[in-house]
């Protein structure tokens, strides 16, 4: 990544005023701010991994096997002698890719369908509603397993299976928003002056729907991360020579009974932080935009 450090500084300078304004909005603001920081920090760390990780994360026998955190290996080593710090720095790639891809696919599918269905109404709306309700009823991991089995392993297939399960969430949220907006005066007015359907959709409805979409997206991210970890745990993850937090979690779990806590703790904390970051953002944003509790 060219110009890494200067881009970071630029983002930083825009970030600080954003964060301070958030902090003023009470607990919800704090949630969003903390969540945002967590997510950005982890993403940046993963992107810079090839430059900042002290050792090759896949190289075995870097040091004594299963050695606890020390000055040479701050996060310890695992049972093949791989450096845990390097693995933690580089391991988020798979999960982040899966989460990002699933959100993109979901949005690409769910938003147009949702907008179309709720705006058009009628039988199409009813049928789509029914279909979406059926999909919504599905246990995400189970469908993900079925799809991962059929299509094989890999980032794209994991993302696809998570995306399929999440489309109904976007659909529902968009639909409820659109239905309420559709009846509003200014939309009727726009209709009256002869604006076409897609213009109304893009100019009036879409901007109002975006907040809810973002909230759903954050929950989508968090769930994608946890589902990716779950799939890896079952054995449907990516190849074992790619550093991956999910894989380290699975392996680390087997080591915990022997008192080796560092192999599962550090990747585990990262996964929790990443999922937490998105969840916090979602919580904060939903409270900010849909205030239900007033003092």
């Amino acid at each position, binding site marked *: 990544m060219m110009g890494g450090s200067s881009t970071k500084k630029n983002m930083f300078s825009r970030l600080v005023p954003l964060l301070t304004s958030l902090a003023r909005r009470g607990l919800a603001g704090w949630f969003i701010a903390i969540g945002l920081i967590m997510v950005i920090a982890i993403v940046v760390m993963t992107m810079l991994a090839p430059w900042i990780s002290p050792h090759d994360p896949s190289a075995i026998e870097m040091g004594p096997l299963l050695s606890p955190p020390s000055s040479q290996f701050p996060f310890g080593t695992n049972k093949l002698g791989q450096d845990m710090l390097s693995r933690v720095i580089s391991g988020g790639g798979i999960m982040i890719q899966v989460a990002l891809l699933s959100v993109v696919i979901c949005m690409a599918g769910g938003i147009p369908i949702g907008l179309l269905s709720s705006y058009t109404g009628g039988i199409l709306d009813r049928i789509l509603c029914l279909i979406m309700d059926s999909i919504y009823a*599905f*246990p995400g991991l189970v*469908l993900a397993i079925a799809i991962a089995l*059929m*299509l094989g392993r890999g980032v794209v297939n994991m993302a696809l299976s998570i995306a399929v399960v999440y489309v109904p969430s976007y659909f529902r949220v968009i639909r409820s928003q659109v239905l309420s907006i559709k009846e509003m005066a200014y939309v009727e007015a726009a209709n009256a002056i002869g604006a076409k359907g897609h213009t109304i959709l893009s100019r009036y409805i879409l901007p109002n729907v975006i907040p809810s979409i973002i909230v759903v997206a954050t929950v989508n991210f968090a769930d994608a991360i946890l589902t990716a970890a779950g799939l890896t745990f079952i*054995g449907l993850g990516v190849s074992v020579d790619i550093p991956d937090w999910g894989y380290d979690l699975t392996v680390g779990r087997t080591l915990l009974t022997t008192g080796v806590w560092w192999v599962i703790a550090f990747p585990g904390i990262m996964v929790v932080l990443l999922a937490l970051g998105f969840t916090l953002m979602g919580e904060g944003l939903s409270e900010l935009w849909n205030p239900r509790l007033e003092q």
Partner: protein
Amino acid sequence: MTLRAYVISRILLTIPMIFILLTMVFVVIRILPGDPVLAHFEKNVDPALVEEMRVKLGLDKPLWAQYFDYVFGVFRGDLGKSMYDYSPVAEQIFSAFPATLELAISSMIIAALVGIFLGVQASKRYNKPVDHTIRIFGIVTYAIPVFLLGMILQLVFGVGLRWLPVGLRMNPMLAAPQGLTIGALHFSTGLYTIDSLLEGNMFKFVESLRYLFLPSLTLGTVLSGVFIRLTRTNMFETMRLDFVTAARARGLRETTVTYRYALRNAFLPVLTMIGLQFAALLAGAVLTETTFSWPGLGTYVVDRINFRDYTAIQGAVVVFGILVSIVSLVVDLLYAYLDPRIRL
């Protein structure tokens, strides 16, 4: 609309939903990558073997015929034959189902109880540190992978304190509870807790609870976050309503006011949430069962992955989907029964 009309229309709605579900599963497994039989065998396989499996499983008919076989089969209770040993999938799923049901029910109970209790506490002390802690607890428990939490509980309560067993469903020394036997009539639910009560064996009952506790606690804790959030917001609103203030003014104790009056009103959304969370519960059960060697549908699915047994996984997915549909149907009906507003 009246209750009767609502019940009828809701039940009728479930049927097309299940159809769509079946179709979706069929599309995923039969159509998406092409051929589950070939996928089972990998490339360059002896074509005779492939044909043999196809014929045995009824997969040599045209696609539309397969679809109808499949759909009508499901309603007949026939979920096809396993690709591993050609035994009926429905039988296998039926034998594994009670274990998962027991786990699901007890996890949901724990999730609801923990969630409601903490939610109530949080709503009472709105925006105070306790509230924040509870909210954060709810969010963090959701973000922890289920198998990680399960491992920690196993280590603490099982290996460390030796209070609770770390796996299995029942004490190895005891035979599985058989349920009620009157003469030649045999009645068992497959749920060890209930069966041991039916058998009249209290020791088995306590043992089955001990074995059930850790897995349910694991799954329940992960799900409780949603209930905490929901109860918190609903209780907060309800406590502000007039009748609650009136009750308090009359001098009733705070716990009575909270749990007898306010909670009853806030309960309805929780009920709906139980229905909605059921899908997440089943997903979590897959991971929990593997962690605790719990012989249920989750273990079944994971095993079948290793066997590349597509028909079995298809059957399991269908069963999961139908289960969730039925649960949401029941929840909706219950909701309609309890909340008169929905019928108007």
